[in-house]
């Protein structure tokens, strides 16, 4: 997943209302007005959130039906997940190098100690 897309995903997920919308969509596709109900929000406000989610690839909106149902797109979340995994790998490799380096430093220290 390109970085800019991942950024869009992260920032889309940063909002509690949008996460709640996603949580609702996990249960199945639904209409905008149904989504708006529990939030005490105007339809345009909900539509704005949906646009952000759609831009991030987290949801899609059908063009077939008149009521344009929203559905969740799990692919985008998998992108976030593999990014997390890369991050963890980066740090494990970094710790490997740190360990090697500390060994070298200590070996040097011992040598110096013997010379005294």
């Amino acid at each position, binding site marked *: 997943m390109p970085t800019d897309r991942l950024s869009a995903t992260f920032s889309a997920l940063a909002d509690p209302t949008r996460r709640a919308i996603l949580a609702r969509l996990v249960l199945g596709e639904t209409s905008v007005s149904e989504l708006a109900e529990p939030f005490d929000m105007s339809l345009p406000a909900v539509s704005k959130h949906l646009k952000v989610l759609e831009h991030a690839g987290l949801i899609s909106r059908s063009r077939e039906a008149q009521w344009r149902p929203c559905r969740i797109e799990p692919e985008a979340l998998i992108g976030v997940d593999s990014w*997390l995994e890369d*991050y*963890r790998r980066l740090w494990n490799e970094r710790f490997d190098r*740190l360990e090697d380096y500390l060994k070298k*430093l200590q070996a040097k220290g011992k040598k110096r100690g013997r010379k005294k």
Partner: protein
Amino acid sequence: MDEPTIVVTRLVDAPRELVWQAWTEPRHIAQWWGPNGFTNTIHAMEVKPGGVWRFIMHGPDGTDWPNKIVYREVVRPERLVYDHSGEGANDPHRFHVTVTFTDKNGMTEIVMASLFPSLAARDAVLKFGALEGGGQTLDRLADYLPTI
């Protein structure tokens, strides 16, 4: 810890003071920071609250990656708290990181906890990964869960 974090730990066979130096002195940190195949040019490193560590990671393909770390808490030799970002002030990949060094009979345990750029992102991943059930996402998430 209430907030969502990802934690990486390592027990290294070296005294805590030495580990601290390896993390806080430019001549040392350039030797291991990497990542694999990368070299680093360190422009400034001032390890104190509000101090900045600015460096460029040179990738194996010649790409340069500017990095900026701003230290928030510095407690020698046990604790470092910093924000890590690229150059942009609103870099969405900015991390809030806490590193602790604990003496374990002459060895040192390093615990690195990173708060996500969006705290919520990982929560969401856990939640939806779990709901998806049994998929590859869930398998990988099993690694993260014990670290919360």
